[in-house]
Every structure is written in structure tokens, then in C-alpha cells.
């Protein structure tokens, strides 16, 4: 219990410091803060991984039973992809400007809500949980990276438009490479998203008796999947690229955030509220 708490707060503080460093780096066009941030994010990701494994081992189920666990899992994928990009191409460190603060916000929200593990509700006891949530978080992580790439693209493009030499921005990859990576993660997220929806539909049949119930969460996930599908069409067949595509990627992430975290907060008639509240018949 203690170790998990310490590691969680270590992650929160590490991501906070990294976010400040990343923002400072980009605002003041300095490379050193970015370098420092990358030194912090690596160990923080290791701590994040340990929390993820400890929680799974302690509860015996895939961590997806509360806001805290969803933040841990979703954040793990977003930071995991970021670290992967660090290792693959050092010049892509800037993508963390988007993923680290986003993970920090979700983690902070999860910690404030309910960090203690809850017993797994009967409705969540299904093999489909792992498949459904795993692909959901994979999709989220990929889309978050695509949005990060979108942001990076716009920052670099703005600098190029100013026609001022900047060593800081010169070290970022070429716009074409940023755009290609952005699209790569959209494609990855789109496939994971599709598998998530299909796995959810098959699970829903066993749990609720129908593959599709036009539930608000289902409808939003369909909307966001269709929007990402549309963006792929726009790029591949209608030739969308550049700033337009970058803005689209940044905007589209909001639809995924609404699906995963927003609907449960604002809508009462969703059947996608598990674990933290009861099945019909449970006393408050």
C-alpha cells in the first residue's frame, strides 16, 4: 500500500516537473530543459510501470476499475509511446509536451477521486474486460501521441513561418517526418479503437443481451472512431496535410477524452458505469 502511494506521488511530481520543463523549453526555445525532462520521464515511466504491475498483482484484475486505475493504465500507454519515441528518435522528445501534461491531469484526477482498489464488480468479471480496455487505452495512447505530433508540427511550422533561425526548432524533425509519425499513430489508434469497439460489442451481448444499445458511451466511441476514419480518408484520398491535419488531430483527441472520461460525468443514462456504483439492487 505504502510503496504504491509513494510511487504514485513520485510519478505525479515527476510529471509535474517534466511538464514545467517541457513548457519552459518550448516557450523560451531552450534545449536544456527538454533534455532534463527526458531524464525525468524515463525513471517516472519505470515507477509508473511498477504501479501498474503492483495494482494488477494486488487486485488480481486488469487495472480498469476506477478513475485512478483508468488514469494509470491510459497514462501508461501514453507515456510508454512517448518513451518509445525518445528511444527511436531523440528529436521527437517534444511530443512529450502534450502527453506528459495530459497524463499528469488524468493521474491527478484519478488520485483525487479514489486511489484505493475496489472489489471487481460482477459486471466487470469477464475476459473481454482486458481485451476491451487494453485496446481502448492503446487507442488513447496512440491518439494522444498523434495529437502531440500535431502540436509539435504547428510549433515548428510557426517558427519556420517567422523565418527566424532557431537552433531549438532546427533540432526538431522535419515537418514531413512529424506529419508521417502523426499519421502512423492515428492509424495505430484507429485499428486499436476498432478492435475495442468490436470487443465491447461482443462483451455487451453476454452482459446486456445486445451487441449495440445506442448507449451514450457507445455512440461517442462510434463518433470518435468515425471521425478518425474520416481523417484517414481526408489524408489518404483527399490529400489533407500540413497545418489543417495537425489541427484536426489536436481537436479529435477531445472526442476520445469525452468518450472515456466525459460521458460518465455528464450523462446519467449510460450503462457504462461499473464498479464504483452498484448493480441494480445494491444498497448505497
Amino acid at each position, binding site marked *: 500500500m505504502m510503496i504504491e502511494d509513494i510511487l504514485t506521488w513520485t510519478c505525479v511530481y515527476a510529471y509535474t516537473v517534466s511538464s514545467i520543463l517541457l513548457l519552459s523549453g518550448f516557450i523560451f526555445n531552450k534545449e536544456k530543459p527538454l533534455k532534463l525532462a527526458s531524464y525525468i520521464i524515463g525513471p517516472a515511466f519505470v515507477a509508473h510501470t511498477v504501479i501498474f504491475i503492483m495494482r494488477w498483482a494486488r487486485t488480481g484484475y486488469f487495472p480498469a476499475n476506477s478513475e485512478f486505475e483508468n488514469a494509470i493504465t491510459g497514462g501508461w500507454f501514453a507515456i510508454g509511446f512517448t518513451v518509445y519515441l525518445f528511444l527511436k528518435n531523440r528529436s521527437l522528445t517534444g511530443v512529450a509536451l502534450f502527453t506528459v501534461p495530459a497524463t499528469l491531469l488524468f493521474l491527478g484526477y484519478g488520485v483525487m477521486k479514489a486511489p484505493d482498489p475496489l472489489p471487481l464488480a460482477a459486471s466487470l468479471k469477464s475476459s473481454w474486460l482486458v481485451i476491451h480496455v487494453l485496446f481502448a487505452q492503446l487507442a488513447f495512447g496512440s491518439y494522444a501521441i498523434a495529437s502531440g505530433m500535431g502540436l509539435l508540427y504547428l510549433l515548428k511550422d510557426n517558427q519556420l513561418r517567422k523565418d527566424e533561425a532557431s537552433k531549438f526548432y532546427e533540432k526538431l524533425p522535419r515537418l514531413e517526418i512529424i506529419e508521417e509519425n502523426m499519421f502512423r499513430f492515428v492509424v495505430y489508434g484507429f485499428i486499436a479503437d476498432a478492435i475495442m469497439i468490436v470487443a465491447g460489442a461482443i462483451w455487451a451481448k453476454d452482459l446486456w443481451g445486445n451487441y449495440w444499445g445506442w448507449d*451514450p458511451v457507445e455512440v461517442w466511441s462510434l463518433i470518435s472512431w468515425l471521425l478518425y476514419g474520416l481523417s484517414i480518408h481526408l489524408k489518404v484520398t483527399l490529400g489533407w496535410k500540413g497545418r489543417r491535419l495537425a489541427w484536426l488531430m489536436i481537436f479529435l483527441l477531445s472526442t476520445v477524452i469525452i468518450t472515456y472520461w466525459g460521458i460518465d460525468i455528464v450523462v446519467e443514462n449510460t450503462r457504462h458505469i461499473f464498479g464504483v456504483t452498484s448493480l441494480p439492487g445494491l444498497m448505497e
Partner: protein
Amino acid sequence: MLRKIVKLFKGVKLTAAVIALLILIYFLGLILPQKWMFDTRDLYELWKEKSIFNQFIDFIGFTEIYLSPVTIVLLALFFINLLTVTLHRIPVILKRAYLQGDMPNFSGPVLKGGKEVKILATDRAPSILSGELREFFKKKRWWFHEGKREHTYVAVKHRYSPIGFLFFHLSFFLCLIGGIVLTYTRFSGNLPLTEGQRFEGAMSQFRVISSDPNIMKQLPALSLHLEKVQPVYENEVPTELTAILTIQYEGELSKEIIRINEPVNRGAMSIIAESIGVSPLFIVRGPSGSQIDAAYVSLNVLGGEEDTFQFETDKRFTFAVRFYPDFVRDRGAAATKSIEMKNPAILLTAGKDGKVIYQGVVKLGEYADLGVYSIGFEDVRYWVEFLIIREYGKIPLIAGFILAAIGLIMRLVFFQKRLRIAIEEGKEGTVLYMDGKSEFFQYSFQEELNALADGVEVYIEKSKHDERE
């Protein structure tokens, strides 16, 4: 005219427009009140009368937006567009997968000076070099084929990837077929059963029938006997619900355990445990103490809410019940320590002709005195509401899901990369030209092309070395 229509329907702009409109419709479905949200028809009518806007959205069918004529028309357009695009693309896809049409015909050293050209000079004879290239690409799992002109070749990675487009788009039609069959053959009804109770096929026992099939109305012979229900709670969270049932399906008898997420499936029929409640046994006695009425009354009170019932024998009496599974008094008020059935009690409010005549806590085995009658709480059992479903269409639907996933992966992960290779003999030796194109990620492909060119060079050197050995 027909040509113009076909041109319109095979256009990707129409696809984008229809998808955008469908997204808008689905979004509206989230913010506009829907018919199913109203508990009764009267409440819906009241809401409708409130404003002209409400009447308007009701008129255009947007209170059942997912089935509204506008949505159906859009879906029809979507599928017509999908079909037209798919049919139109078949020859292109077959050509791209090199299943139909000519191989590339390199009429001269067209590759020279191209953007992504790699040039290798070697002293190998063209015939030997072509054999080495074939071996090299075969080892790398590239499909290698001769071009029309001598010593020209095409190498393709993920040759069949374009077929993924067909798979993905056809999967929508499989899902459509599955969805239509499901909709038209679906029977679904909610059947509440108390422990010990039987269902012998009487439709009147269903609390509600939410889907009545349009075709194949005859349901298979089914009878059920609910033997035992066991909910499990951990820290006030329901972690398990076990219902033991004897099922007779088409004459075949079996004993089954149904849990949440673990329905029993028999042919096209599924039995799903949906919700749980309690059925207290109420016994009504007259002034002499003789039993007048007795029944297990299924109440929806486990969530702490109040439920009501009436005597069948005397409709003047009404009863409101709150249930406490583990009864305690908390500062004088009725409360429950946990949600486990350790010390069940009810808070009974009895009314007669609209006036409250009794209110108090009645524990298991106790009686409440109502004047003429007394009502006892003698036993309590669980009830479970089962969702009984019969539907067909699962196979095309699941096949559609699988085909969609395969199609997407084929198309977007294993996308096609093509190389054009030409060998020319010059005065200074043999020159190998190589250029290529990737369906996506052209910049990354440039790196791959460089690596391939290096690989070919190393392979040729290795072959030479092996020959010398």
C-alpha cells in the same frame, strides 16, 4: 444521367459528406430527448406539448433518431456509396495486388534520375545478378517478378494488402446482413423468477417483451425452474451473482449455473441474468388468525428504494415497503449495517382508502396489526430477472467484425511497398537501378529503400565471396 449518378456515388467526397452527416445525427441523438427516456407514454406526450420545437423533432422522428427516416436514408446512402466504391475499386485492387493486368513495362531506363532511385554498379553479368536479386528478395519475403522488358523486375512487399480494402468494406455488408437478420428475428423479454418459481412458457409471465420478432415468431419450447440464487458482496460491491436453474430446452433437460457475464446459450436462445431483488413472503391473517392470503411479492427494494404492492383479496389496502437486509437502528431510524441478508426487516407503510393506518419496522417472523387484518413477514427469497433472447444473424455479424479487423490490419499495417528494378549493361559494367513507392509513410520508406540497396550490395559481395571459396 446514370453515369452522373454512378460518378456521384463512387466519389469519396460523398463518403466524407455522408459520414459527417451520420456523425451529426449520432451527436444529436445524445443531446435531443429520446422516447425511451420517458417512463410512460403520457409523460412523453406532456413533454411534446411543451413547445413547438418538441413537436417538430417528434414530427421528423428525431425522438427515435437512430431509426428516423433521415438516419435510414443516410445509412442507405452510406451503403450505396460503399457498394459503388467497392465495385468500382475491384479491378484497381486486383491490378494492385498483381492478380490481374500487365506487369510494369519499363521501356528504357526510366528509373534514372528519379526521386528515390538507388544505383548500384557491379561487375556481375545481368543474368547472374537477376538470379541473386531473386534470391535476396525471396529471403526478405518480397514477391519478385519479371517485367515485360528484359532485365526489369518488380518486387512487392505485402502484395495482397490492397485486398484489405475489399475485406474492410465488405465487412460492413456482413454486419448489415447480420444486423437486419438480428432485428427481424429478435425476441427479447424480461422474465422475473423468484427462487423456487417455474416458467413453463406462458408469455404472461414476462414483465415486459421488448422485442417481438417480425418473422420466425415461433419460439423454441423452453421451461425454467429457478432453484437457488446466491449474490456475493465484497465491501458493499456486488462481485458475483449465481443463479442455479433447471432448463428444459426443446425437451432436453439440464442443470445450469448462470452468472453475470456468463449467460446460458441454447441454439439461437440466450438466458442472461440481468438484475436481482428480494421477494418477501407476506401472509395476511383475518381477526381469528386464519390465513387469508399469502404470496412471495417481488419487490425492487435492494437499492434502498421504496416499492409498493396491493392485496389481491382486498384492493382498499396499499403497502409501501423499504427493505433492510441487515437491520439496525441508527439514532432511532431504521438502517442496514451491510447489504448481506443477515437480519432482514422491512419498513412497512400500510394505507387504507388513501389514509396511512400503519407504519413500522417488521422483522422476519413478525406481524403488523392493521385492525381487521394482520400482515406477517414470514420468509424472504431472492428473485432474478432473466433476459430471454432468441435471435439469428450472429454468424454474419461476427464474421463482419473479424473481416473488418483483418481488412484494417492488412490495409494499414501491412501496406504495400513496391520496387521497380532495372539492370542495364554499360561500358563500365552492369548497373542496377532501383526505385520504389510505399502506399503510406514515404519518408520512412526512403530509409527502407536505402537499407535494401545496401542489403543487395552486401548480398552480391557475399555471393562473389562464396563463389571464390
